[in-house]
């Protein structure tokens, strides 16, 4: 990240200036597009140079598609693809007479694609304004202008006492402040061996320790709510149904690290996350649980919610910090790590929402109790998983580590509905490996899945049924990957485009050449986007070589 731009932003931030991205988003909300005059205004208000603002305005999905009075966004995520292929997209294009990214001449309606709305349990999904409709009839209603908000299934827990699928009660924070103190709390988190739940699995305690010891005038905790993985709606549920739990986790992190300010980065594709979190913050402040002198401890901690603007890579922690500060969401080389230099150049901890939601229980009951939540596994804590619409009982479920994928698919989610059969399952997100039906007895755990070329990732379990063509899956994943590439590093920027082009037509794909391309992506990419894309493709090459059409 440009140190100079971060410094300019920091200087303006001291006078309560908005970020350039915030100003541009407001412009789109207000008049449906971004003009040069908006850019100039964003530069003036935020302190970011005009050219940099221009760059921001060309990066994020929300700023690029022109909006009519009625703005229809159709989801092209993997769960919606698994449900209907591209049929729902074709239907809405035909029905509205617009291409994706187009606005009608009279400005009354516009169509854009969006990935993903988090309604994977009821695919296909379509958003009109801020209401998300999904399931049977949703597309027709969108075309007719009669969309309504779709219901969301209740979440549940397999544990005897829910740890994650419960509203927060602040008992962890109370105990930490009354009995532990920051150093002891940090030690508990380290002892608890909490692994990041966003996909990287990095030990949270280690990250917190670095940040605590780093030199800096101010420190920050950032909750990564940018759950862009198509098929995943876990963080959505946490932010919208248990915001207090998330806030408690943030406050605990701040207390342990010595940070007085937290941010939550939410997705604009989840329009309810920000308002629900902000309402919870207001309640918490009123109760003395956030703000100055939390619980009379002398420790200040407050939280700001920032909404993104449509970019998958912003889920990567350095890209996230760039977006938070109003810059282009591109990835930065590490070191320096955010724990050393993050928001405004200061030490920053970035933790996934679910990771933070694990902390209140650990603070309240201790590291041993936390480690024992999954008796059938070495891994500490529990995990939220979610299922896509193909399943009979799709929702978010809290499970212990160590169950097999088959158990999760058949017992927990009830198998596929309408008697359909599982052909393959993609676990953890679009960069996760794909397990064929024959390998479902693999245990759902970090090492076991890694051995199969898969990952726990974010925890989504997305089934493709036997009607799905795996070459279509390859093409779908590569299109997503190429579209979402931030464009900074060469292997991903060019390599994913080339990989997509290989599968875009119907020509056979030269296996050796393709494998060499995958190697360049895996070993050369700057981050796990380009670096991770080979995993599901290798699964497909291994398990479905004929269907892929190789040479």
């Amino acid at each position: 990240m440009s140190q100079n731009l971060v410094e300019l932003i920091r200087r303006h931030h001291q006078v309560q200036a908005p970020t350039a991205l915030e100003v541009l988003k407001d412009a789109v909300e207000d008049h449906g597009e971004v003009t040069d005059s908006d850019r100039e205004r964003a530069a003036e208000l935020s302190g970011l140079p005009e050219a940099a603002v221009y760059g921001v305005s060309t990066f994020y999905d929300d700023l690029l598609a022109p909006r009519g009075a009625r703005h229809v966004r159709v989801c092209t995520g993997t769960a919606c693809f698994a449900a209907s292929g591209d049929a729902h997209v074709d239907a809405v294009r035909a029905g509205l007479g617009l291409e994706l990214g187009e606005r009608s001449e009279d400005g009354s309606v516009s169509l854009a694609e969006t990935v993903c709305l988090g309604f994977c349990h009821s695919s296909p999904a379509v958003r009109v304004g801020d209401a998300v409709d999904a399931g049977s009839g949703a597309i027709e209603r969108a075309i007719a202008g009669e969309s309504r908000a779709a219901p969301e299934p209740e979440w549940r827990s397999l544990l005897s006492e829910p740890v994650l699928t419960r509203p927060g009660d602040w008992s962890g924070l109370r105990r930490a402040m009354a009995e532990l103190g920051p150093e002891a709390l940090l030690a508990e988190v380290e002892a608890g061996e909490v692994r990041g739940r966003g996909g990287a699995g990095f030990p949270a305690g280690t990250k917190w320790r670095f940040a605590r010891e780093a030199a800096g005038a101010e420190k920050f905790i950032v909750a990564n709510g940018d759950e862009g993985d198509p098929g995943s709606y876990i963080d959505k549920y946490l932010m919208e149904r248990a915001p207090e739990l998330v806030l408690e986790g943030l406050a605990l992190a701040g207390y342990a690290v010595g940070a007085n300010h937290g941010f939550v980065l939410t997705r604009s594709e989840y329009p309810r996350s920000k308002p629900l979190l902000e309402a919870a913050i207001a309640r918490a402040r009123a109760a003395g649980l956030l703000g100055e002198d939390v619980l009379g401890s002398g420790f200040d901690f407050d939280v700001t919610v920032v909404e993104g603007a449509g970019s998958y890579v912003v889920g990567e922690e350095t890209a996230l910090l760039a977006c938070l500060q109003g810059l282009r969401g591109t990835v930065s080389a590490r070191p320096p790590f955010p724990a050393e230099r993050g928001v405004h150049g200061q030490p920053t901890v970035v933790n996934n929402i679910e990771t933070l939601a694990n902390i209140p229980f650990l603070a309240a009951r201790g590291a041993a109790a936390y480690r024992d939540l999954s008796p059938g596994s070495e891994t500490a804590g529990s995990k939220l998983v979610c299922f896509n619409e193909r399943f009979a009982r799709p929702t978010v479920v809290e499970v212990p580590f160590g169950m097999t994928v088959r158990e999760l698919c058949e017992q927990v989610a009830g198998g596929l509905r309408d008697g359909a059969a599982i052909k393959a399952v993609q676990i953890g997100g679009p960069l996760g490996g794909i397990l064929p039906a024959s390998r479902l007895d693999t245990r759902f755990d970090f090492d076991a899945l890694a051995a199969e070329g898969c990952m726990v990732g974010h925890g989504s379990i997305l089934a493709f049924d036997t009607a799905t063509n795996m070459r279509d899956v390859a093409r779908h994943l590569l299109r997503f990957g190429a579209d979402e590439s931030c464009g900074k590093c060469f292997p991903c920027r060019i390599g994913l485009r080339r990989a997509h082009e290989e599968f875009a037509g119907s020509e056979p794909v030269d296996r050796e050449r393709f494998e060499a391309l995958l190697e360049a992506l895996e070993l050369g990419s700057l981050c796990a986007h380009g670096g991770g894309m080979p995993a599901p493709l290798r699964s497909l090459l291994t398990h479905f070589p004929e269907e892929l059409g190789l040479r």
Partner: protein
Amino acid sequence: MSTVTVDGVEVEVAPGATVLEAARAAGRWVPTVCFDERQAPFGACRVCLVGIEGSPKPLPACTTPCREGMTIATEDATARRVAGAVVELVLSELPEAPAPHTELAQVAARLGVEETRWPGTVHQTDEDFRHPYLALRHELCISCGRCVRACDEVQGAFALTATGRGFEANITAGLDAGFEDSTCVSCGACADTCPTDAITEIRLLPQSTEEGWK
């Protein structure tokens, strides 16, 4: 000071030195495309990959800090294979081969990369010759970021930016209305650092005449 070994040669490096600095101190060549010694390392091109003992994958030399006792292999087979593949990818997005004098062409030649295994869409021609001195040919831009960083970290005019996303990424000046209409001070640092002549001096273009200034 720490001591590291580069291709069997021990070399002392200052605290905070990168593997690339160590390699150069040892007189060893590591190919780079997005690196410029006048700017902070960026880590975009991934061509400077080297082998490091103990690391399962090759690491980028320009952004990896040295540690005491590190053993570095600049010609590690995997590293070079991937670096070569990356250069092939970059060549594949350009509408024509880079001019022989450009840094990109020289790195490709030295790595022995001539053709690409992955041809595909190339950049569309988009030339901007509005400025009296600076020519900007967007189709030759490989988004290495050096020009943006020169304008940021050296001149401090902040006139350039990366634009777009993914394969459509490129660069532009100001609000995409040309150098003159931006905060550009015409210092030429961008042209000086560009490894493909996407930004170059207009008088050096083949189509410029020798007439001299009117």
